[in-house]
């Protein structure tokens, strides 16, 4: 087998693994987790009718989404109205291309790194995709020809641009200390030294908060605030298109958790453990997905615990608290790295 | 030992502190609409401590530096200490460093500048305490000390020039201390402008030194001593010396640039004592002595210095004879004494000149501070015709002033006697009989007007108002203690150089720093004779003053009459009447100010008017207006391209790019 063919096959296999985990295993069950979690927190049962413990609720929901009539309102911009959910979903799913989900597995005498594309601008790639995702929300809001949707779209664009800044700056601090923009290098640095969440606790907190805002989750779900905007940008969506919005929210959540784990919580690594061989590689995958799942749970936990911010509070938090904090964090990290003579 | 630059730096620090606090305080008071009254006690305490403390600390540092150095010097082992702080500017092989130099000359200057300066700061604490601008005053006074110490310690002409201009600035600021009074503001401006005339000469002189020696560092003096000039210098040594001397004339108030000094008395009296008597005005003498190695290469220039000095001495003394303002008398006396110093330098007796600088600083400071004490007691009355009979009321002031007066009059064994005698002796020994006669005559006049001052002020009966009489008081200790110290200095400072080989400390000390002149030796007999002659002249002057100015009885209703109508001495008035025109001229200060107004300023105003009306308004404005008109015309024609439509502009832009690209491509 020529190296090129091998690479191609390996890439296809990795894509298959990642999508199997995210799309097939995590995504549907997240809905169940969220609703059961909400029940737990609010001291009520949650869905428990479909299947044991209501486990098949997600399946039923998906079926319902597919079966319902797809209503397209009369005065919408048809093209954009259709395209918008896809624009939102695609970046969310493609983020995983650069996230290392395990150490490496020896296959046919070669080490296969467990990351789909180990590119040297991986972190920038993630940010690029995040910034593209905004279009989905904005266009959905605009194309719906509905003032609530429009307001939702406006809010989301302002919110995401604002929080992407502090998110980016705190991530830059991580990149400075690791000395590379390649996510696998960042993980390797953390495995060799210390998880970034320890020395850069400020940056870590800023990043997590900003990630909540980027995914439009409570307490930053102003673009879809039911109480004010009906449902914001997806008011005019139904059936499958609505399902895509739904999916993209959870996909984004998984992607954000994966990024948090990669940048701040050591990715697939564990302290004092080295993963070698086939089993080591598989084990590292388990570690990575376990950590990711933990942060997904945090997302859910926060959603059902905190109230929503007011819009001005949101902007104040983003610009006057998080951004200065992240800049400060970056300065300190850069100073330390510079005085130590480079990472 | 701390580096030398700490000595000027400390007063600068004091200036910054005092200035900042004074600024904050005055703007706060202005905001609250307060003003006119004295500062709160805390602020006065702060300014006093910082002002006196910084200068006092500088004094301690200075003596800490110069005492060991002087011991070495007397042992004949001391070389000039040069410390470079940093390089100020450089261009090609020319460079100027901010450097400080300690040698015999600067050590001498340093000693009395810091010492007298500290005393006067201390005196000011008492004298100025009623003033609203207390903080500003101390800030400027500290700044002055910084500049003066830079001047004295500067190791090259540019650094000296910084100090030179710095003291000029502070002089301006302090003369105009009462800036809300027109005469004070005008006097400040006058001092500044007249000094500029001299400074032009000084700056050109610095350039001349650079052209002659290729450096402005005082190392050029060594070269000058060995007469090593840099070949084909376009400037002669004469020209350079004359230019430097012009600068010295401006700063040290020599004829014809003396006119600013009497007016400078508009400032507070301690300022007059410090700046316009003891220290700053001697900077010119210092400059000439410093560059003495250069001056001896140009004997004719030295002769000019001598004659200017002698002329100034007698001229100013003659004006002093008839002044009625106590400070004006002292001012003219200062000018006259400065003339003596230049006279000494002019005949090559640089050490004698510096000796007089040294002694003069003590007795003149004492006199000014004493007059300040009198003025303070009389609530700012300066006219001697309204004084009289103050001796019992102000005993400390009277005694110290009397000592200083005896010193300036040249009575043995006070300091002035020795220094003046050195000068006159050198003049006589150098073979300048005419200059000697002028010198002796000046000595007699000095003795006369000084005792006239003492008699008018302290003898007889009080001629002021009853209210003034009621409030008469001796000054506080912060004022009398400096007076006594200075009086002691007036007695003792002469003993560092007693003729006939009794004491030779000063000339031995100064010799390495000054140019060597051929010495003229006189027999002890001749020396004694000359001494007797000058002493006799002084005694004659004193006798006349005491006879004429009895001050008793006081004229009728003196308290209620304007000063102009009070005749203190009928005998003097009668004498003045007999001299006719000459007396009137003396009384009117030889009409010099009016002469300058008519002879110099008038023509300049005329030229200015021609330049304004003719050249500026017609030619230059014409050119400007014509070009403006052309531009307007072009604009009127071109404005139709401004369609207001952005797309037109974009199209024009594109077409222009099209043409450019086509040009690049096809041509």
């Amino acid at each position: 087998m020529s190296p090129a063919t091998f690479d191609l096959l390996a890439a296809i296999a990795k894509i298959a693994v990642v999508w199997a985990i995210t799309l097939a295993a995590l995504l549907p069950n997240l809905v169940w987790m969220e609703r059961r979690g909400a029940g737990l927190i609010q001291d009520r049962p949650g869905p428990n009718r479909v299947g044991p413990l209501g486990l098949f609720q997600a399946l039923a929901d998906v079926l319902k989404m597919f079966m319902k009539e797809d209503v397209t309102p009369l005065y919408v911009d048809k093209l954009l109205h259709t395209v918008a959910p896809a624009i939102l979903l695609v970046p969310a799913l493609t983020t995983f291309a650069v996230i290392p989900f395990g150490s490496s597995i020896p296959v046919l005498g070669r080490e296969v790194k467990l990351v789909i594309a180990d590119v040297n601008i991986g972190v920038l790639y993630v940010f690029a995709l995040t910034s593209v995702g905004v279009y989905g929300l904005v266009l959905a809001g605009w194309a719906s020809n509905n003032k609530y949707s429009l307001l939702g779209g406006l809010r989301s664009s302002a919110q995401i641009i604002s929080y992407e800044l502090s998110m980016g700056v705190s991530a830059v601090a991580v990149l400075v200390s690791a000395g590379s923009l390649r996510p696998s290098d960042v993980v390797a640095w953390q495995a060799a030294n210390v998880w970034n969440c320890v020395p850069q606790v400020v940056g870590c907190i800023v990043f997590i908060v900003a990630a909540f805002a980027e995914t439009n989750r409570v307490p930053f779900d102003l673009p879809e605030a039911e109480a004010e905007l009906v449902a914001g940008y997806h008011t005019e969506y139904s059936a499958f298109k609505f399902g895509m919005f739904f999916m993209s929210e959870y996909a984004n959540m998984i992607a954000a958790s994966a990024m948090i784990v990669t940048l701040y919580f050591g990715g697939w690594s564990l302290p004092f453990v080295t993963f070698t061989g086939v089993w080591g590689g598989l084990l590292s995958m388990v570690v990575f997905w376990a950590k990711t799942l933990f942060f997904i749970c945090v997302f859910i936990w926060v959603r059902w615990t905190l109230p929503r911010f007011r819009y001005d509070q949101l902007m104040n938090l983003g610009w006057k608290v998080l951004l200065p904090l992240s800049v400060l964090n970056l300065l300190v990290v850069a100073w330390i790295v510079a005085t130590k003579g480079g990472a | 030992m701390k580096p030398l630059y700490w000595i000027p730096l400390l007063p600068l620090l004091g200036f910054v502190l005092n200035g900042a606090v004074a600024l904050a305080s005055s703007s706060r008071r202005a905001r609250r609409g307060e003003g006119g009254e004295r500062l709160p006690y805390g602020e006065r305490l702060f300014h006093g401590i910082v002002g006196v403390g910084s200068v006092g600390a500088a004094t301690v540092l200075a003596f800490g530096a110069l005492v060991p150095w002087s011991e070495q010097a007397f042992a004949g082992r001391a070389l000039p200490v040069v410390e470079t702080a940093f390089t100020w500017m450089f261009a090609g092989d020319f460079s100027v460093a901010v450097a400080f130099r300690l040698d015999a000359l600067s050590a001498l200057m340093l000693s009395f500048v810091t010492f007298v300066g500290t005393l006067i700061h201390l005196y000011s604490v008492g004298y100025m305490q009623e003033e609203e601008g207390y903080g500003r005053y101390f800030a400027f006074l500290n700044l002055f000390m910084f500049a003066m110490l830079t001047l004295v310690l500067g190791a090259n002409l540019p650094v000296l020039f910084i100090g030179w201009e710095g003291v000029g600035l502070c002089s301006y600021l302090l003369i105009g201390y009462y800036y809300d009074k027109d005469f004070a503001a005008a006097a400040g401006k006058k001092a500044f402008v007249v000094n500029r005339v001299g400074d032009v000469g000084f700056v050109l002189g610095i350039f001349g030194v650079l052209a002659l020696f290729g450096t402005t560092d005082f190392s050029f003096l060594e070269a000058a001593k060995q007469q090593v000039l840099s070949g084909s210098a376009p400037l002669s040594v004469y020209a350079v010396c004359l230019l430097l001397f012009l600068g010295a004339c401006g700063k040290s108030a020599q004829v014809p640039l003396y006119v600013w000094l009497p007016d400078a008395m508009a400032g507070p009296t301690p300022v007059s004592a410090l700046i316009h008597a003891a220290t700053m005005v001697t900077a010119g003498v210092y400059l000439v002595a410093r560059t003495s190695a250069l001056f001896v290469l140009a004997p004719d220039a030295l002769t000019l210095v001598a004659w200017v000095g002698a002329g100034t001495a007698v001229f100013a003394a003659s004006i002093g004879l008839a002044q009625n303002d106590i400070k004006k008398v002292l001012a003219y006396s200062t000018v006259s004494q400065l003339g003596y110093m230049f006279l000494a330098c002019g005949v090559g007796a640089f050490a004698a000149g510096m000796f007089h600088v040294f002694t003069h600083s003590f007795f003149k400071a004492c006199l000014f501070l004493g007059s300040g004490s009198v003025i303070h007691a009389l609530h700012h009355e300066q006219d001697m015709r309204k004084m009289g009979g103050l001796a019992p009321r102000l005993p400390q002031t009277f005694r110290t002033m009397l000592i200083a007066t005896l010193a300036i009059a040249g009575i043995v064994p006070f300091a002035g006697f020795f220094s003046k005698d050195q000068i006159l002796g050198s003049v006589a020994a150098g073979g300048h009989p005419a200059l000697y006669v002028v010198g002796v005559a000046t000595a007699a006049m000095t003795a006369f007007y000084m005792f006239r001052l003492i008699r008018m002020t302290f003898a007889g009966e009080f001629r002021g108002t009853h209210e003034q009489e009621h409030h008469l008081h001796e000054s506080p200790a912060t004022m009398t203690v400096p007076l006594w110290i200075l009086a002691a200095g007036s007695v003792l400072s002469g003993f560092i150089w007693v003729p006939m080989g009794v004491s030779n400390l000063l000339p031995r000390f100064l010799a390495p720093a000054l140019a060597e002149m051929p010495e003229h030796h006189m027999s002890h007999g001749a020396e004694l004779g000359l001494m007797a002659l000058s002493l006799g002249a002084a005694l004659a002057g004193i006798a006349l003053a005491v006879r004429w100015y009895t001050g008793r009885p006081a004229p009728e209703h003196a308290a209620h009459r304007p000063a102009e109508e009070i005749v203190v001495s009928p005998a003097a008035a009668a004498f003045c009447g007999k001299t006719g025109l000459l007396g009137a001229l003396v009384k009117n200060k030889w009409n010099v100010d009016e002469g300058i107004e008519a002879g110099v300023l008038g023509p300049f105003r005329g030229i200015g008017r021609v330049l304004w009306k003719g050249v500026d308004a017609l030619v230059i404005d014409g050119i400007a207006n014509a070009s403006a008109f052309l531009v307007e015309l072009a604009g009127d024609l071109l404005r139709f391209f401004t369609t207001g439509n952005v797309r037109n502009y974009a199209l024009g832009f594109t077409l222009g790019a099209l043409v450019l690209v086509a040009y690049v491509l096809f041509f």
Partner: protein
Amino acid sequence: MSPLPGIAPMSVPPAAFLAAGTILFVIGLIGALLKRNALSIFLSIELMMNAVNLLFLTWGRMRGDASSHVIVFFVIAIAAAEAAVGLAVFVALFRARQTIEVDRVNLLKW
């Protein structure tokens, strides 16, 4: 999977990149000249700038010179500044005149 880009020879002739960049530039220019909506004109200008960026990158690639990347970096930074100010101007303009049609905004003439 292409290897790390950089020293490999170019497999596509650079002239093709240059042509593409120039064509994009001209399209942007046409938009800037013909559009009447200030925002659309602005969009076209952004396109022109990016087309020039493409040309820079091509030449830099041809010369093996990283300075072109730095210049493109600066162009992008300046474009960001320009967009911020330009859009603020449009918003202010719209508030004043209720339009951003450039043909209707022509008070500033002789």
